[in-house]
């Protein structure tokens, strides 16, 4: 169980970190006056600084109003539901990069239908393949937009 206060602090720290990254990154390129006006780091530097300052503002606001932020941000049951959605999605991205988007689509849809929708394995696999083929026809044939392909497409001679 995560409280709203913890989530506020965690997110504000994350945004402050991103702002700091922009500040440090921008310093490399100079924030002064160059041959062509302000150097290229100037704008991102001040934007990063603004993010850091506003994140500190959020941190202070959360700390001051801590009492009012004790509500639950994420219940255990909700966290489980989010994880059961996020992890297959993460796997989908990894498989897409290794085997291409079509194979990943077929596998991902089949897996989610079978494991979460409780469909029969055969129905799930058939639906996954049908969806991948539909996407292929729609994107590559109709709109001429190529998607990321992997070894299976190469073996089948599809480029």
């Amino acid at each position, binding site marked *: 169980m995560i409280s*709203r206060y913890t989530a506020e602090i965690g997110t504000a720290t994350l945004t402050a970190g991103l702002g700091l990254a922009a500040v440090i*990154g921008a310093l490399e390129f100079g924030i002064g006056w160059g041959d*062509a006006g*302000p150097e290229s780091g100037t704008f991102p530097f001040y934007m990063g600084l603004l993010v850091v300052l506003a994140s500190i503002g959020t941190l202070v*606001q959360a700390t001051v109003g801590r009492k009012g932020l004790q509500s639950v941000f994420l219940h255990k049951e909700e966290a489980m539901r989010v994880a059961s959605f996020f992890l297959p999605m993460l796997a989908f991205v990894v498989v897409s990069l290794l085997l291409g988007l079509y194979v990943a689509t077929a596998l991902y849809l089949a897996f989610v239908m079978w494991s979460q*929708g*409780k469909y029969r394995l055969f129905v799930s696999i058939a639906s996954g393949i049908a969806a991948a083929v539909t996407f292929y026809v729609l994107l590559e044939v109709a709109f001429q937009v190529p998607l990321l392909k992997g070894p299976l497409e190469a073996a089948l001679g599809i480029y």
Partner: protein
Amino acid sequence: MENFASLLHGFGVALTTYHVILMMVGVLLGILVGVLPGLGAPNGVSLLLPLTFTMDPVAAIILLTSMYWGALFGGSTTSILFNIPGEPSSVATTFDGYPMARQGQATQALTLAFLSAGFGALVGVILITVLSTWVAQFALRFSSPEYFAVYFLAFASFVGLGAASPFKTVVSMGLGFAFAAVGMDTVSGGLRLTYGFNELLSGISFLIAVIGLFGIGELMITMEEGLRFDGIRARVKVRDVLKTIATLPRYWVTLLRSAAIGCWMGVTPGGPTAASFMSYGLAKRLSRRKEGFGKGEPEGVVAPETADHAAGSSAILPMLALGVPGSATAAVMMGGLMIWGLNPGPMLFIERPDFVWGLIASMYLGNIVAVLMVLATIPLFASILRIPFAIIGPVIVVVCFIGAYTVAGRPFDLWLALAFGVVGYLFKKLDYPIAPLVLAMVLGDKAEDAFRQSMIMSRGSLSIFWSNGLVTTLMLIGLALALGPVLSTLFGRLTKAKTSSAVA
């Protein structure tokens, strides 16, 4: 009169068979993305945008704007039938729309929603027709400092007028600018903020951010809530529709007031969501039947729907005339215009009048097409939500990632979309506004260029932002808006302290 003649010419451009078919396809796709959880108007437009790169810009923008109208209508359908707002701007419609549907008045609620939405959109488009040339001509006087001041004003109004914490709005906006700065610097041509990653050389596309923030983030929220789609079956009977149409004039005050609120919030970047809530709140406060609100009061459907669509359509005005979009979806569309090689702003009216007026004319036609099509297809789209989420959910995920890949054909964008999805989930749950982030990503380069050019003009002195009446006025309004929340908090504390010391 000049505008009227241009509009007639625009109708000539928009009223071809090809364009009308595109409108119908766009509206249908829009209703689909509006109905499906996780796929809203900004997301739908982002997903469709890469497929329009090969199209003629007039045809492409007609397809995209029609999708926008369709998505706004689709969002209302799910709000009323399923109590699930397909769009954030449809949340206020659930308050009375769903209770009406539960009382067996689904057809009445839907008809009222669509007709008032159509009315709101019409007022928005009339506003664009009347004002666009004037605003564009006014904007022709702008040079870099004035443009920077307009961008400053737009972002300041997010801070001042938004419902979120000003700090969170600034974080969201600043991050958007920082993301926009990644990759090639438009002035020096050098690379920056890439941290040695080759994948970041070509920058971070705002389209990937929209897909992650609005699509994947929204889906994660939907999953967390474990939504069950327990909808009300609706069959739209022509007789009931006609009867409801006859009752519409009864709400003329609400219609006009809500359209005015919507237009104002659309032109300033308050956006449709803020407009619908504000309009609902005012309708409730000013109504004679206050106690009926929340229990199925028709006025509670009319008010947010009119404002939502008035804001949605009038958000196109600053995008076209100034190059400053009034909503997240308008920002995505503006990004599209830039990708097609068009430069939104006053020069567009001079360089491409066929495009501008074809677009404005298509907004009239697109909304009429949308009202008719949405009334005809409610049962079809409502049945989509009866497909189990274990099928629809992963299909939407796949569509989002395929959309992210098609933006530039870069595998790394899949990771970026996922990361933005997590950010979107956190931001939504913690009330960080997302629209300023998207707007900053789209306007980042333009705002920075305007700032740098102004600095070059003044040899590094910030006084250029106070150098004439126009830029000073814009900056002062911007500052007042940006500092408004801080000043009102301080003022509130001071008054409180005085009151308590007086009591003591």
